[in-house]
């Protein structure tokens, strides 16, 4: 007989015996009434038993708490978890006050030491993971004994998870993602950032309870707030890497570049604010000063001081910059939907990791693809080299043309570039492919309406009509296809006014704008086709320019400006108005490049 059946039988027997007892005590009692009494007795017995069990459990817990000092949820006894004590007035438990700020300071020092160690071992993935684990444990234990550790523990766990996911997941499985640099920066600095964040939280906790910070804490707080992002990181990053190991030591370079960009932006921000304050005070002292011109002058002076050494050259540079400093804006020509494009395409079978045996060639092919709807025929020169930190190994492009070839006049062209290193490789590198496209041609167009001298009544009637019909939106600006570079040009009084009445104060100006992702190497020739126009400086109509610094994407090369002194006869006094389009041509050299990470493992046998 099963246990359940046995139990049920026993219970039924007990009930039967109890009914007999009740009826014996009270012969008038019916069986139903007796059953009710029995059920109440059983219920009461059950509750009594439950209460006894609860009491026993509570007693056990009290005993355990007394022994370990924690609740059953492993929380400190006393105050339950709540949000950080910003603005709270609760008292921290005395048990954890003794941790003080020393914990946070220790964590900061520890994270900085780990940063140095990782720099030394060059971010080997496994060792990095091990160090992160150890560090995470230290952090976890440290914050466990701080006031209100709940959020801090969560932050530690989050930082560890982020570090793990980035280094072991994202950077491993998708090493070439577009946010690679950001991920690497996070991977390098996450523990230091966490330590600083915990320190700041600790400061708030301490101050909110009315306690004082020690001198060391104040000093560290000042450093953290004022200089940690500007001094501490660059200070560490200046250490050169001199190790050749199979590791991800380029992370430091990438993080350094990212930080340098931030530093440069912050420096520029500082410059802008200091110039602004300086020019504002100058304007207060001398109200006739134009603040915008003052800001521009300071920017030019700073630019020239960084470009040239001698004071005489600085003055010359300033004069040149001021002379040509009219930025002309242009827009993409919406009617040209197929611009010329060139890009490197890394194939699916690109050998990102190779095992290299001495004497065997290492070859890295990449495709240079060109979309050429206008069937241009630029000359292409391709070079390559291998880099790792400060190490630079030249490469050579193999093949019959050795990377020098002319694009055929076809709408689509594709060329395979094979790069071979000139030296032995062992470890991880970046292959940098550079392609210089020579003698590219770009054309821009600009529209203007010539009305001559007209009465006010005519102008009031017709100028709105002309603007509406011929210059909707931004079509008063010069337009060019969205290709590598374009020449923006304009003339008018002011420059952006497309209605030309006469030559009075009509300025002609142009700018070469880099709209691609590469660099402008040379401006070989520019020409503004304005037949019949007279200007006071013919350099603004045509010429060439030496590009001293290769402008990055979005940078402008300012071309000479001038005044228009005479219009062609047919545009001087039209009976109504003449609408005309002008073209400008730019001939230039452009460089595009790409970087592909590789890993080479030397094999001895």
């Amino acid at each position, binding site marked *: 007989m099963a246990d359940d059946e046995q139990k049920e039988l026993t219970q039924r027997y007990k009930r039967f015996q109890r009914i007999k007892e009740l009826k014996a005590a009270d012969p008038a009692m019916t069986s139903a009434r007796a059953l009710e009494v029995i059920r109440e007795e059983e219920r009461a017995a059950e509750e009594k038993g439950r209460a006894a069990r609860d009491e026993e459990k509570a007693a056990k817990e009290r005993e355990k708490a007394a022994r370990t000092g924690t609740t059953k949820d492993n929380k400190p006894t006393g105050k339950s978890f709540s949000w950080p004590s910003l603005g709270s007035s609760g008292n921290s438990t005395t048990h954890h006050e003794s941790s003080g700020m020393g914990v946070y300071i220790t964590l900061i020092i520890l994270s900085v030491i780990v940063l140095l160690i990782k720099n030394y071992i060059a971010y080997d993935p496994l060792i990095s993971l091990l160090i992160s684990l150890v560090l995470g444990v230290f952090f976890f234990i440290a914050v466990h004994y701080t006031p209100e550790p709940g959020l801090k523990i969560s932050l530690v766990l989050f930082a560890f998870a982020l570090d793990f996911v980035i280094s072991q997941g994202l950077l491993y499985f998708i090493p070439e993602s577009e946010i690679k640099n950001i991920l690497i920066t996070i991977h390098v600095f996450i523990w230091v950032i966490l330590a600083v964040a915990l320190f700041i939280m600790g400061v708030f906790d301490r101050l909110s309870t009315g306690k004082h910070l020690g001198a060391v804490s104040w000093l560290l707080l000042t450093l953290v707030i004022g200089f940690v992002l500007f001094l501490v990181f660059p200070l560490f990053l200046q250490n050169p890497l001199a190790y050749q190991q199979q590791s991800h030591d380029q992370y430091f370079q990438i993080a350094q570049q990212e930080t340098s960009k931030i530093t440069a932006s912050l420096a520029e921000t500082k410059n802008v604010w200091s110039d602004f304050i300086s020019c504002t005070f100058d304007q207060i002292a001398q109200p006739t000063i134009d603040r915008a011109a003052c800001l521009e002058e300071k920017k030019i002076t700073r630019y020239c001081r960084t470009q040239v050494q001698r004071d005489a050259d600085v003055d010359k540079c300033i004069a040149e910059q001021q002379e040509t400093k009219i930025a002309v804006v242009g827009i993409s020509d919406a*009617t040209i939907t197929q611009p010329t494009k060139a890009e490197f395409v890394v194939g699916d079978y690109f050998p990102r990791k190779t095992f290299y045996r001495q004497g065997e060639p290492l070859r890295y092919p990449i495709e240079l693809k060109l979309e050429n709807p*206008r069937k241009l025929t630029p000359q292409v020169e391709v070079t390559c080299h291998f880099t790792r930190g400060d190490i630079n190994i030249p490469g050579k492009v193999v093949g019959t043309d050795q990377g020098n070839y002319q694009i055929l006049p076809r709408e689509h062209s594709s060329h395979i570039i094979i790069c071979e290193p000139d030296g032995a490789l062992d470890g991880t590198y970046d292959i940098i492919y550079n392609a210089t496209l020579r003698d590219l041609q770009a*054309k821009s167009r600009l529209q203007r309406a010539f009305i001559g001298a007209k009465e006010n*009544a005519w102008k009031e009637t017709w100028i709105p*009509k002309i603007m509406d*019909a011929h210059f909707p939106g931004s079509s008063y600006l010069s337009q060019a296809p969205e290709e590598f570079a374009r020449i923006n040009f304009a003339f008018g009084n002011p420059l952006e006014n497309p209605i030309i009445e006469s030559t009075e104060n009509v300025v002609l100006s142009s700018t070469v704008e880099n709209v691609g992702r590469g660099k402008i190497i040379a401006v070989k020739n520019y020409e503004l086709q304005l037949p019949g126009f007279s200007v006071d400086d013919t350099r603004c109509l045509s010429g060439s320019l030496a590009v001293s610094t290769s402008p990055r994407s979005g940078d402008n090369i300012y071309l000479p400006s001038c005044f228009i002194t005479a219009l062609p006869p047919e545009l001087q006094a039209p009976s109504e108005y003449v609408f005309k*389009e002008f073209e400008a041509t730019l001939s230039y050299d452009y460089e595009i490049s790409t970087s592909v990470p590789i890993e080479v493992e030397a094999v001895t046998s």
Partner: protein
Amino acid sequence: MRCTFLLFVVLCSVLLLGCSTGPGEKAGQYNFKQGMAETQFTFLENAPPEQIYPGSTFKIIVNVDNQAAYDVTEGIVQIIGLDEKYFSVAPLEQSFNTLAGRSLTAPEGEKTFLEFWGSAGNLFENADEYTANFFLKAHYRSTVDFADTLCINSRMYETYDAGCKVETHKSYDGQGAPLAVTELDEIIAPGDGAQAEFRLHLQNRGEGTVNQVNLGPAKLGSEELRCHFQGEADEQQFIRFDEQQEATVICTKYIGSLNSYSTTLSLSLVYDYDYQQQQSLRLVK
């Protein structure tokens, strides 16, 4: 039987009601010199075509249709605003002869066609298309005649006068031209040496712009009326319309001390009119 008779009556009624005077008689009763009407300028279908290809030729044919009640003269049509690099049109200006207005003898008005020859250039670089906006501008001269019967009463305070009643203010919806007399105010200074002053309000109701308006002959009955434009010297018989496109003509006449009588006030105006219309040509690859 009764039903058949009823049906017969209904059919006869329908036939009788449906009958009306012929178009000739109806036209003879219609006064074209009312309301607003002006000369229309439209392009013929496919001239120009909706899409033009580089290097091709095309025609722009303008249909000039005089729907006003007056002849138009000295007409000029111009094409303005095309860039020769993309579209070359010749001639850019053409004139047209007198176009008769709508009348009993020409109830449809007179129309003419003006042809412009065009050739297309090339697109910029490898652009897909280019849209050229331009204006069709027309200029012509025309007239407008105003006439209405008015009551003249120099003895407005007489107790017994079985004549007409003076209406001091009257409104009109036009005289079949873009320039219209919209209101007339009659002011009579009664008594010996009574004088009547008529103020005619002119307004441009067309889609174009009125430039200069010249006063023509004005008569009250068979007698000449002296008129001038408000705000201008009496000797100056013309006015240039400004942005408001309206003006007031003031005509005065000594009417003497006579019983009230009805007579016709007539005024003729000659005006120059400009009309412009935005159009576009599309050059496609």
